[in-house]
């Protein structure tokens, strides 16, 4: 097993454990912090998969901005965690777990088929680097890129509208 593969499995354990804490822990602040750790472990996955630019974006955007926003809202609304909403009732829990197990089983059955077609392709020069990403983004993916910017604008206006103080 190569060093990279070893690192991958170690990281996978961290990712699964932190994800478990996110969905199970009662305190939302602990959930959010665990999610930050999870996002960093996903960033490490990106690094191991030769996506250096996405590694940086993942940490800056997800861990550094979105999750701070989450923590900010949690601390703003309910700093002491008094109104902590717990988990769903037993029947819903059982149904959920059954559905999740079924979904996992289906994916476990389907995914190995994708691996066929030999080993990984040779990587082109500058794979995953910022210049290559930028070039693709501004040529082939120009339209989706512009649409994404409009989406962000709409989201910003929407968030401002939802979050504004009521007139009454």
């Amino acid at each position: 097993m190569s060093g990279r593969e070893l690192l991958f499995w170690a990281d996978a354990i961290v990712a699964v454990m932190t994800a478990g804490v996110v969905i199970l822990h009662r305190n939302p602040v602990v959930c959010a912090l665990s999610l930050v750790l999870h996002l960093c472990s996903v960033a490490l996955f990106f690094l191991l998969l030769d996506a250096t630019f996405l590694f940086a974006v993942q940490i800056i955007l997800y861990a550094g901005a979105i999750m701070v926003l989450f923590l900010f809202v949690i601390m703003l609304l309910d700093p002491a965690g008094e109104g902590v909403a717990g988990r769903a009732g037993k029947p819903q829990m059982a149904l959920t777990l059954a559905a999740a197990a079924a979904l996992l089983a289906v994916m476990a059955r389907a995914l190995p088929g994708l691996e066929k077609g030999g080993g990984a392709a040779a990587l082109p020069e500058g794979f995953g680097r910022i210049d290559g990403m930028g070039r693709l983004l501004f040529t082939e993916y120009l339209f989706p890129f512009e649409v994404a910017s409009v989406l962000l604008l709409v989201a910003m206006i929407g968030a401002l509208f939802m979050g504004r103080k009521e007139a009454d």
Partner: protein
Amino acid sequence: MVPFGSALMVSALLFVMGLVGVLIRRSALVILMGIELMLNAANLAFVAAARHVGSMDGQLFAFFVMTVAAAEAAVGLAIVIALFRRRRTTDVDQVSFLKW
């Protein structure tokens, strides 16, 4: 070299965990976090596939997913704040009606 199949399996497992989180939690904030888990799992699959195929399109998809996630988080959190202002709760089971 990270094996493609194991990366996909990890991604599938994380996705299902996120789904479970969305379904069993009642706090709107933690439900949003579950959605983030699922989006990240999808991103992992995209990036692993990009590495496997040797083309950067998968990475760009992950990039766009992150953009959407940022928009989703902003609007979602604004909704949670608006909800909390009105109802003093973030428990989704207590706001299951359409009108008040």
